[in-house]
């Protein structure tokens, strides 16, 4: 199982890279280097890495406004993600999108979107295109528990089931839509069951466990690929930080957050399962990469005023 162990190490590394990136992004926000809203996914690294590692390179990924981790897991250079946060021309969206609107077409990361629930129909369209072009690509569509209450959720699941589109709807159930807890915004809190009425089968994984997430997502992606059916996967996770950097978090108990951080940290727990991992060494190497990302973002130029109209029309 040497192969498996290498993969596990790589997952750990990817999760740690995302964690440290997010922490540094938060620090840069506090220094006013990053503007707008900054939504961090600290605590959700296993959900992100487990899902993305289950994908093939030619599969598509589409995400929400909380998507730095998705871009990085997909292989986008953290430098370009940080530069986007800084609003620089070298950023993944040329500084036009910011934290909420990352995109890396080359890696088939089809974007982060600031409108809650707005990405679901796009995912169905991307999957339709894969079918149309007679490929066996699968689309993974990530969204939050809160987003599952938009009309687009029901409308898209129905259409995807009707047309047998190869798309995996992955609801990242971090148990809050902004300040509203799951049981205060959703009647059926077993979110993976919410596709049943549309004929979309549901699976659930432990989103704090990268291995479990990987396995369940692999199964879902395989079924979507070969059976041509949409699937709904619920990853149960927790967001350790506030909804955004501007969130005072008055809606949840400090002890609850503390317990999740201490008992369910996806990185710490996974590292403990692996033999011979030197977390400190790994951390040092990652720290250097993050330093380089900040330096790159800092030194890059802002988009010029003359470029303002670029790309408005093709």
């Amino acid at each position: 199982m040497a192969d498996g162990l290498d993969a596990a190490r790589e997952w750990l590394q990817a999760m740690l890279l995302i964690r440290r990136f997010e922490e540094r992004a938060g620090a840069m926000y506090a220094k006013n280097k990053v503007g707008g809203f900054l939504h961090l996914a600290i605590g959700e690294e296993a959900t992100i890495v487990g899902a993305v590692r289950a994908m093939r390179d030619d599969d598509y990924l589409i995400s929400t406004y909380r998507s730095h981790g998705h871009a990085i897991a997909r292989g986008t250079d953290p430098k370009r993600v940080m530069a986007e946060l800084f609003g620089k021309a070298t950023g993944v969206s040329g500084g036009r999108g910011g934290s909420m609107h990352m995109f890396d077409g080359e890696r088939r990361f089809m974007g982060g979107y600031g409108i809650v629930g707005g990405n679901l129909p796009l995912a169905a369209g991307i999957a339709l295109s894969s079918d149309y072009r007679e490929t066996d690509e699968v689309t993974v569509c990530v969204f939050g528990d809160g987003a599952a209450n938009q009309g687009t959720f029901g409308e898209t699941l129905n259409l995807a089931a009707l047309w047998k589109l190869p798309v995996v709807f992955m609801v990242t159930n971090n148990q809050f839509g902004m300040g509203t807890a799951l049981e205060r915004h959703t009647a059926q809190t077993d979110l993976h069951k919410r596709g049943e009425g549309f004929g979309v089968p549901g699976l659930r994984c432990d989103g704090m466990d990268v291995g479990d997430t990987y396995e369940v997502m692999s199964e879902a992606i395989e079924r979507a690929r070969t059976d041509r059916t949409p699937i709904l996967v619920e990853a149960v996770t927790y967001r350790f930080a506030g909804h955004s950097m501007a969130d005072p978090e008055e809606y949840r108990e400090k002890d609850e957050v503390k317990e999740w951080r201490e008992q369910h940290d996806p990185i710490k727990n996974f590292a403990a399962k692996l033999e011979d991992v030197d977390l400190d060494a790994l951390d040092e190497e990652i720290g250097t990469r993050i330093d380089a990302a900040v330096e790159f973002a800092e030194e890059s130029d802002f988009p010029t005023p003359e470029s303002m109209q670029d790309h408005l029309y093709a």
Partner: protein
Amino acid sequence: MPELRYREALNQALREEMERDDRVFIIGEDIGVFQGAFKVTQGLLEAFGDQRVRDTPISENTIVGVGVGAAMTGLRPVVELMTVNFSLLALDQIVNHMAAIPYMFNGQVKVPMVVRMPQGAGHQLGPTHSHCLEALYLHVPGILLAVPSTPADAKGLLKAAIRDDNPVVFIEHESLYGAKGEVPEDADHLVDFGQAAIRREGEDVTIVGISRMAITAQQAAETLADEHDIAAEVIDPRTLRPLDLPTILESVRKTNRCVIVEEGWPHGGVGANLAALIQEQAFDYLDAPIQRVTGADLPMPYSKPLEQLAFPHAEQIVERVRSMV
């Protein structure tokens, strides 16, 4: 008079109207436990309980539609949508239902409700969170449209909106929530719809500023007076439907020049409409073409230098006025 912030003035209006009339309730995403994304609804859950302060799922179209149904049957809902961009998800309920129902059922039913939401650029929120879409709602017959720019107006217009039997789209500006001003304590302080405010008097040019641009226009007018000896008259329409056209026309007939400033897009904008109305009714008084200063014709860029270029600042207004006087 006590000084309040714009957000506090709105909060006071909600509080007072809920106290006055128990048919008034508020509904929206994160308005209760979270106390509002912009803290306008702070303390209201505690004061009025969860029957009257209702946190909802993230389902804009349904939230507005629920408001319409409640309003049709005797309640007076105040719906909060977190940002004007998100109201686009509710356009069906706003345009096809809220606005049309009283007319299409021949007046048999009223829809006395308010949909509140903030708009505006300057916070680097990019193209999905930064727009000014008052023109979109101005386009729709059957609704009233308020765009308050001061704390006193925020309070008085919101109270008038809640008491009005028509559906009202009430657009706040994100950059004004922290702005302070004197606000009448009177629980019956109402600002009537269809009454523009003349913020500053002058003879040389009329500047009409929409929403936050009414404030920016005043800054420009100060500079014009101090540095260029130009006396600008600044008008804040406060409500766009009904529009106090007589006050604007009277000013233009006096100054013979007009600049309209809005943060929204130029094409089909509030200024385009207003310019047409002015030239229809006061053409003979104009000594120069009506000018518009607008937001850039673009989805709002995130990057700070570009975003700053994409919405109007006082300097641009000053330049434009100087080019025509």
